[in-house]
C-alpha cells in the first residue's frame, strides 16, 4: 500500500474536503469575533462603554462573551469531528492497517 494511493482515494479526498470546509468557516468566524474585541474597544469606545446592566458596560459583556463563544466553537468542532470525521478516518485506517511501509 502506497501513501499516494490513499491520498488519491475518493474516501480520503472526501474527508479532507469536509474537514477543510468546516475548519475554514470555524477559523474565519473565531478570528473575526476575536479581533472585533480589540478593534471595537479601541475605535468604538464611546459605544462600548455604554452601560447595559447596572454599571456593567457593553465592553465587559463582549469580552466575557469571548469565553463562551470559544467554548461553543470548540464544542461544535468536537461534535462534528466525532460524528463526521472520525468514522471516515477510522475506516481508512482499518482498510490500510496491513502492509504499510514505515
Amino acid at each position, binding site marked *: 500500500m*502506497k*501513501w*499516494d494511493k*490513499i*491520498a488519491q482515494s475518493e474516501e*480520503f479526498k472526501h*474527508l*479532507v474536503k469536509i*474537514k477543510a470546509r468546516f*475548519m475554514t468557516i*470555524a*477559523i474565519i468566524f*473565531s478570528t473575526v469575533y*476575536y*479581533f472585533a*474585541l*480589540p*478593534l471595537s*474597544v*479601541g*475605535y468604538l*469606545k464611546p459605544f*462600548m*462603554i455604554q*452601560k447595559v*446592566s*447596572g*454599571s*456593567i*458596560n457593553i*465592553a*465587559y459583556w463582549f*469580552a*466575557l462573551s*469571548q*469565553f463562551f463563544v*470559544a*467554548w461553543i*466553537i*470548540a*464544542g461544535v*468542532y*468536537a461534535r462534528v*469531528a*466525532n460524528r463526521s470525521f*472520525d468514522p471516515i*478516518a477510522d475506516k*481508512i*485506517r482499518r482498510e*490500510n492497517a496491513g502492509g*504499510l511501509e*514505515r
Partner: protein
Amino acid sequence: MNFLGIGMFIVIVAITLMITYWASHHNKTTTEFYAAGRSISGIQNGFAIAGDYMSAASFLGIAGLIALNGYDGFMYSVGWLVAYIVVLILVAEPMRNSGRYTMADVLAYRLSPIPVRTAAAASTLVISTFYMLAQMVGAGTLIKMLLGIPYEGSIIFIGIMMILYVTFGGMLGTTWVQIIKAGLLMFGAIFLTFWVLGKFHFNLVSFFDAITGKLGQSFLEPGKLYKNPIELVSLGMALVLGTAGMPHILMRFYTVPTAKAARTSVLWAMGLIGSFYIMTTFLGFGAAYFVGGDAIKAVDKGGNMAAPLLAQTLGGGKGSLGGEFLLAFISAVAFATILAVVAGLTLAASSAFAHDFYVNVLKKGKADEVTQVRVAKRTGVVVGVIAIALGILAKGQNVAYLVALAFAVASSANIPVILFAIFWKRFNTGGAVAGIIVGLVSSVGLMMIGPQVMGKAALFPLGNPGIVSIPLGFLAAYFGTIFTTEKTVHSDKFDELYVRANTGLGAE
C-alpha cells in the same frame, strides 16, 4: 520568615517528590521519557495542559493587572483562551498523528531533516529560554516576598526542583506535577471567587456596582493600560497564534495515545483555562475593591501580590490566623504553579536539544535508546543549571516583556512553518528554514528596538511586534519555498504526511 507558608511549601515539595520517585521507575525508553509512554488519558492531559499553561504570570500577573488597571487586564485572559481554538482545530490532532516527540518530527517527515531540525531546535530553545527566564525571575521575587528566602536561594532551589522532576520523573512525573498543580490552582481560584462574589450575594451587577462606586466607572472601561488599538491587535495575534507554537504545549499532545484523546484533552484544557481566567477577573476586581490599589502597589509595584493579598484580607487581614493561613495557601498554590511550568519548559528544551539536535543532527539518528535517554537527562540538568545562572544574572531586571517575546517568537517562527508543513503541498526545506529564521530574528529584533526594552527612545513603536513579525514569518516561508527548488525530497512525502496527519494511519 513565614512558618505557615514554609510548612505548606514543604508539603507541596514532598508530594511532588513522591510522584517523581514513583515515575522514575517508568523512564527507560525515549517514549517513556519524552511522552510518558503515550499512556496519559485525554482528561488527564487536559488537566496537565492547563497546569503547563497557566503560569504564575497568568495567575498572579493577570489578577494584578486587573486590580491595578481594571478592564484592560482582561485582554490577556481572552487571548489566552481563544488561542486554544487554533490549537484544537489546526494543530493538536495533526501533530499527534504524525509526530513522535517534537514539532521538528513533523517537519522532518517531508523536508530535509538536518536543516529543519536544526532551525526548529534553535527556535524552541530561544522560546523556552525566554519563557523560563520570565518564570524564574518571577519565582525568585515571589518566594522572597512570601517566605523571606533570599532571591538567589529561591532561584537555586527552584532550579534544583525542576532538574529533579525532569531527570528522574521524565514526562510522567512532570505530567502528574502539572495535574496536581492544575487541581490546586482551580481549587484556590474557585474558593476565592466564591468568597468574593458571596459578599455580593452572587449578583454580578451589585459586584460591579460596588466596584465602580468605589473606584469610578472608568475602572470598567478600556484604555487605562493600552492607548493604541494596534498594540492590542498585535498582542492578540501573538497570544492567539503563539500558544499553538509553544513547544511545551505541543509536546503534551504526544503523551496521549490517539488524536481523539488529543482532541478531548484540548476540550478539557479549554474548560479549565477559560473558567480559570474568568475567575481571575473576579479576583483582580475583588482585590481592587477589598485590598485597594495603593495597598497592592505598596507590596509589589507590578501588582503581582494582588491575589495573595486578597486571600489575606478575606481571611481576616494581616496577623489574623485566617488571613495568614489563606495567604500561605494561595502562596503555596502559586509556588506549585511555577514548579509545574518550569518543569514542562525544561522537558521541551531538553527534547529540542537531545532529540532534534544531538540524536538526529549530530548523530544522524544513529543512537540507541539508552544513549538517547541518557543524553536527554543530561540535557535536562544543563538546561536547569543555565536557567539558575540566567535567573541570578537577571535579578532586579524587568523581565515582563519576555513572556510577550516568547509568544511573539512562537507565533512568528513556528506557526507559519507548522501550518505550511501540514497544509501546503509545495512547501519545502528552503521555505521552512527561511520562515523560522526570519520569524525568529524579526520578532526578537523588533522587541529589542521597541518600547518595552528601549523605553521612550524606541525605534519601533509597538511593544508587541506580532502584527509585523507574524506576516514576515509567513512571507519568508512562502518566498523561501517559491525561490528554492529541492531535488532530494519527493513530493509523495507530502502525501504521506497528509494521510498520516488526517487519519492517524501509522501513528506511533
